């Protein structure tokens, strides 16, 4: 059966990735002399390689009034260099049987190619080229701006759930730029231009602000030699700006929002609390929150599913999410999609009841054991997907974490106790620092 709703919320963490445990074997990390970090993940089962360059810059690093410029630049990075014509990067990759793409989040911008392992030299050469030699024609910039406006139409304007998420994030963050959408506000996208893109590029794209992740049928020695050849010759940018964003003040008032849209047929309620993120060397609280979200809303045996769907039968779908891999303060979120005939107020009351009770009783020890068993198993299953591991390292290293932090995470999850989960819940699930949103259809007027 098609489970109808999960994707709505999965998309909320647009282009950011779930955290989970994984094996640290076969992973090698080092740094080039110009400050570029390198991570190599070996997997020789297929003669394939995933080559990624991650920049420590995302939408939350944009100048005020230029929302969407990080993502716009990501598109424009395919529009040519001194030696490559517009579109040639992708066509060379394609002619070599590879595929390429890129993605932008609040905290990072990443470019990748998946290609036969013996073509690593080729794609690395082209990726290094566009790190410092981007050339943009005015006409290409204008046409591509129309493309990203259509991308916004497709992802956001055509989707009430996406509009709701934007409004919800804007409500969540009073001061931090996480309140501004990654793709940008429509009126600001319209004003983005070539100069803004090049300025952002020159400020942030440099080897000492980048991480190279290579996963697949390679050895660290080969990657090191190729990386020194292509990236090692690029000069570091000594004027790289520090990554400091305006931070949130203490939240003193509960916030609520309601979006009505004619395209909504199935309403739902979303609850979010500001929560600490994973910090380098200090991930214990985040580990507890990760398990808290799993215990409460992570699948069929979660507390919310058992209480609201199976026992009380007032919800058709429930869920909980915590996105710990984040440079700045993140959120833990819950959603309840009410059953037919149940109001959003009733759904919200039921959610509150479960949360209140959970803080009193704590997790069921057997459920916690099952979750930890599943987390251990993920370390085995994850080895099947070297590209997925590459994304996990890239996301972590652009979010203020180190390779050691990534490798410590599975054990930290195993060490979390029931008491720590309850303590984290008590600290974070505070009504005063919550945002509650409702998405629903317009009121019927007589």
């Amino acid at each position, binding site marked *: *059966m098609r489970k109808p709703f999960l994707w709505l919320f999965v998309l909320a963490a647009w282009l950011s990735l779930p955290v989970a445990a994984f094996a640290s074997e076969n992973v090698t990390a080092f740094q080039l002399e110009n400050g570029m970090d390198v991570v190599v993940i070996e997997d020789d089962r297929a*003669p394939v390689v995933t080559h990624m360059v991650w920049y420590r810059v995302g939408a939350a690093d944009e100048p005020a009034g230029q929302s969407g410029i990080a993502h716009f630049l990501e598109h424009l990075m395919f529009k040519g260099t001194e030696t490559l014509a517009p579109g040639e990067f992708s066509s*060379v990759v394609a002619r070599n049987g590879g595929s390429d793409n*890129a993605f932008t989040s609040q905290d990072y911008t990443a470019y990748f190619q998946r290609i036969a392992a013996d073509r690593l030299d080729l794609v690395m050469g082209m990726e290094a080229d566009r790190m410092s030699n981007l050339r943009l024609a005015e006409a290409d910039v204008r*046409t591509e701006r*129309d493309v990203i406006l259509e991308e916004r139409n497709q992802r956001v*304007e*055509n989707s009430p759930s996406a509009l709701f998420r934007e409004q919800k994030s804007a409500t969540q963050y009073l001061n931090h730029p996480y309140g501004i959408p990654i793709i940008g506000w429509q009126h600001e996208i319209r004003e983005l231009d070539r100069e803004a893109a090049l300025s952002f590029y020159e400020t942030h794209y440099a080897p000492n602000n980048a991480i190279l992740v290579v996963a697949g049928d390679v050895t660290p020695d080969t990657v090191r030699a190729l990386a020194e050849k292509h990236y090692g010759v690029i000069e570091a940018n000594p004027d790289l700006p520090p990554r400091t964003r305006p931070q949130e003040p203490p939240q003193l008032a509960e916030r609520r929002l309601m979006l009505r849209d004619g395209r909504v047929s*199935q309403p739902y309620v979303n609850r979010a609390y500001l929560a600490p993120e994973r910090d380098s060397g200090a991930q214990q609280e985040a580990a507890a929150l990760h398990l808290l979200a799993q215990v409460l809303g992570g699948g069929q045996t979660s507390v919310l599913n058992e209480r609201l769907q199976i026992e009380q039968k007032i919800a058709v779908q429930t869920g909980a999410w915590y996105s710990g891999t984040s440079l700045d303060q993140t959120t833990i979120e819950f959603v309840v999609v009410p059953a037919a005939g149940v109001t959003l107020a009733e759904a919200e009351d039921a959610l509150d009841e479960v949360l209140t009770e959970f803080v009193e009783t704590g997790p069921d020890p057997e459920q916690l054991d099952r979750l930890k068993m599943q987390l251990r198993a993920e370390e085995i299953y994850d080895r099947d997907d070297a590209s997925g591991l590459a994304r996990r390292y890239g996301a972590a290293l652009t979010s203020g974490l180190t390779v050691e932090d990534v490798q410590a995470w599975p054990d930290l999850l195993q060490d979390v106790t029931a008491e720590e989960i309850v303590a984290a819940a008590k600290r974070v699930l505070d009504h005063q620092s919550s945002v509650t949103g409702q998405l629903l259809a317009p009121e019927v007027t007589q």
Partner: protein
Amino acid sequence: MKHLLFLSLALMLAAAPLHAEIEIDEVTTPGGLDAWLVEDHSIPFVALEIRFRGGASLDSSDARGATNLMVGLLEEGADDMTAQDFARARDTLAAKFSYDVSDDTVSISAQMLTENRDEAAALLRASLVAPRFDDDAIERVRGQVLSGLRSAQTDPRDLVSRAFDRLIFGDHPYGSPLEGTMDSVEGLTREDIAAAHRAALTREHVHISAVGDITAEELGPLLDDLLGDLPQEGAQLPARADLNLPGGVLMEPFETPQSIAAFAQAGVERDDPDFFAAYVLNHILGGGGFESRLVTEVRVKRGLTYGVYSYLSDKDAAQLWVGSVSSANDRVAEAIRVIRDEWARIRDDGVTEEELRDAKTYLTGAYPLQFEGNSQIARIAVGMQMDGLPVDYIANRNDMVEAVTLEQINRVAQDRVDPETLTFVVVGQPEGLDGSIN
């Protein structure tokens, strides 16, 4: 993302194509089930893919949605286990099971750790052979299906695919949503669900692949235990669909800023001698990542869309050449005009030698890259069985792509590309576009 997510397939060197080296063993179990096995003992788990041909199209006409609801209930209680007992047992073993349904298949994907594989397989067996269909589980999953159907009523993507299917496939099962309608799902009984189970999960229609840490000697008994007690025969597979492709535009007015268009003409059968030529032709027209004519003309040159693509759709009972584009309401008419022009241009002028060479280089180079990871290989292997392909297809497929000549591909463009019957369905408030189909 620069490219659409679902397009993620996405001068200096002429690539020498890799050859995929995947060793598939064809295994027949003691109980007589056929399966494909790829042994790889480097990671201690096995990925199992099971497909039953038939899928939601086996629904009887008065119980539309029964197969979908049945599949949703397989993990909601089996043998002496309630839904929660089952879920807890699965989580305790850290096994992963997923159950899905499409027009043509019921699909089961499983990942099982070597350390508890027998217990995990026994649990999976219970869900396939002895699902309970408890009343409270039926009502719970029915509620989820109805909720999804309610959402679909005002979702432009769902609206376009539903209008498209209704227009082209009419009364054939493909013509209606596999989830059923609000009314039909409300009316489904436990008997309908049990009947759908008997009809869809049968030995005669099953295909199996296993990839990972398991030997042929271990796989045989495991599969016999898992599937041996299913009935041999089930429902008759649906008849071929008659395609209604009148050309022109069907409009479905809906208040939203960006119009979504789906389009189609007749497709090409998988075993047609022209299939590979058509496949390469489509790659040049609207397939792949960033290089196709449609992307170049509609997106790169004119900025009319974020995503435009076409592909050869090969369903069991119908072959279509389909595509999609999304553009703001005031620009979609131009996007459709450009697509129509490209459709006519490739028929009339064919493709160039260079386009053919680049397409072959991409397609032959990309093919071996797909075989990454046990789960992925298992999905490909079972898909090949569903398409009736032999195991040596993996070794020979690139040669079949290479064998396409410029003369053949341009003849196929002349014969098969048909702008007159290219039919558009548009959901939105498009400006300057007239609906010619009522």
